């Protein structure tokens, strides 16, 4: 791990440098909560944020997206969309949220490439910020990840006191640290980063047991367990909207008599309408069907198809669930159910 040092005094200058080349989105405090918003001034960034209320997913996969516009009626015409390829940066993204992009990349990149997501992804710089103060419901370490991992960002900043320890993980990152603001790190800096990382890792108190979870789930699909778990679900869909790896969407036409657009909107698998067919038949009519599907999608189907669990341990669904359905608890208990 060869690293660099950025002094805290130089942080605003560094952010300004990034802002010179990119539209920058960063954690900003609004009414005691942190959100990723476009910043105009480096001072707006909250470098000490705990966890953003919403993941930065919408910066790549927009909550609503016009896929194309059209003229309806007899003189039908289709107007292709303008896909904005401007340079953007997420400054201060947490390692867990950065990993979520890596998890949903194949959905949008493979087979039929999604030009909306891919264009944004290719033009997106990720400046990570190590999580030094994990939330009570954080559990990224259950997946062998670290709150101070540079694996899925271009460069990673770790607060080691009066300065940031900087790790580089991509060609884009290499270019950035060429700036005179970055100095080579010493062995002592590196040791300090490891200490900070260890402290963060040790402050994570919750663990999900995921050993062979995909195989275990294969054996308990029909178990009564899923009904017990799902009985309190209000089908509000909060878990899916807060989840950094949920990628399901709906497509609807929004149109007047004169003009219209085909629009993609985030959807939620927790409502029956999601799978309801026109005939009235519904393959997932019950809450147990839907809760089970969400858990299996992340802990069984995703590992089967893409060899990765589609959860990063951010804990947002646990914080947000109005009836305290706790994914750590659900999955850990599922692994203990006797087939």
């Amino acid at each position, binding site marked *: 791990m060869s690293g660099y040092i950025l002094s805290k005094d130089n942080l605003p200058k560094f952010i300004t440098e990034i802002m010179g080349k990119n539209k920058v989105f960063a954690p900003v405090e609004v009414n005691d909560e942190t959100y990723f918003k476009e910043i105009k001034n480096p001072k707006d960034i909250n470098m000490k944020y705990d966890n953003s209320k919403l993941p930065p997913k919408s910066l790549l996969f927009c909550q609503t997206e016009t896929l194309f516009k059209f003229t309806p009626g007899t003189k039908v015409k289709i107007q292709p969309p303008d896909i904005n390829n401007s340079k953007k940066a997420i400054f201060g993204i947490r390692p867990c949220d950065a990993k979520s992009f890596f998890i949903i990349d194949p959905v949008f990149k493979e087979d039929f490439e*999604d030009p909306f997501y891919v264009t944004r992804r290719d033009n997106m710089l990720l400046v990570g910020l190590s999580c030094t103060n994990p939330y009570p419901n954080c559990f990224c370490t259950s997946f062998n990840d670290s709150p101070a991992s540079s694996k899925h960002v271009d460069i990673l900043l770790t607060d080691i006191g009066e300065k940031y320890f900087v790790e580089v993980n991509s060609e884009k990152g290499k270019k950035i640290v060429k700036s005179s603001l970055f100095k080579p790190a010493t062995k002592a800096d590196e040791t300090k980063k490891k200490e900070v990382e260890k402290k963060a890792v040790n402050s994570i108190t919750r663990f999900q047991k995921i050993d062979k979870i995909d195989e275990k789930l294969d054996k308990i699909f029909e178990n009564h367990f899923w009904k017990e778990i799902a009985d309190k679900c209000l089908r509000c869909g909060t878990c899916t909207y807060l989840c950094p790896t949920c990628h399901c969407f709906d497509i609807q036409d929004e*149109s007047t008599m004169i003009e219209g657009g085909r629009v*993609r909107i985030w959807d939620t698998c927790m409502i029956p309408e999601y799978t309801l067919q026109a005939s009235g038949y519904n393959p997932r009519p019950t809450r147990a069907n839907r809760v089970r599907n969400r858990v299996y999608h992340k802990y069984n189907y995703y590992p089967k198809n893409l060899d990765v669990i589609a959860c990063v341990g951010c804990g947002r669904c646990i914080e947000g669930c109005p009836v305290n359905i706790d994914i750590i608890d659900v999955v850990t208990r599922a692994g203990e159910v006797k087939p």
Partner: protein
Amino acid sequence: MSENPYQPNLATIENIKEEVGGERAIKTFRLKFQDKNLQNNFMFQPGQCAMVSLLGKGECMFAISSSPTKKGYIEVSVMRHGKVTKALHEAEVGDVVGVRGPYGNNFDMKGWKGKNIVFIGGGIGQAPLRCLIDYVLDNKKDYGKLDVIYGARTTEDISFKDEFAELEKRKDVSVHLSIDVKEDGWKKFVGFVPDNLLKVKPSPKNTIAVTCGPPIMIKFVIQNLEKLGFNDDQIFTTLEMRMKCGIGKCGRCNIGNLYVCKDGPVFSYRELKKLQGER
């Protein structure tokens, strides 16, 4: 940058054929792409689907019900049921629709060469089988004995009536129609499709069985095929689910870890058995 996979190509409705009237109306729409190049190069295989949309109303996935051996157009056969299909049923010849595809996997036409085929359809489930039957008849020398078993609720509900009448005239196909409930003048089988299958009793020897229809029908057809001695690799079905993207991204059409839009819609019974999931 890659092209936009959500953007359809425009096609004109060339012909509309009313297959079934009334409450559960079915119409077959013949579509021709406005772009001549695309029309000539639109290649698909029996079993594949296309997303058809009325701009401003929405988009639905349909099995392509015409055979790829019929050049110059594609057809979809649509039951009037939801928002988009109701709007489609109000469309007229000359109206313009959006079409994207073809999507999904297909029947193994090469692998089935030299085999007998039993087609077992129910209701609008005949649409993908219609494509398959036409394809096989246009390549008759490649395939053996053909049995077409089809049932609908009432005589009114039988789709592709004229085509079944034509098939019945042919010597190289046996057609076995049924209706669920007795009607005056109906001399053929009365009862459900799985029961008619048992009565027809096709031999499993060197034979493929393909079925499509309501989920409950498929379930009992498969049970009865097993009774007749068909094994898991001889039984095929084509499934449907609610779909939005058609390209394995929007998430809703999964059965277990597979997406019907992308990994299906055609599954062998062996594949289906392995697949744990709601369907």
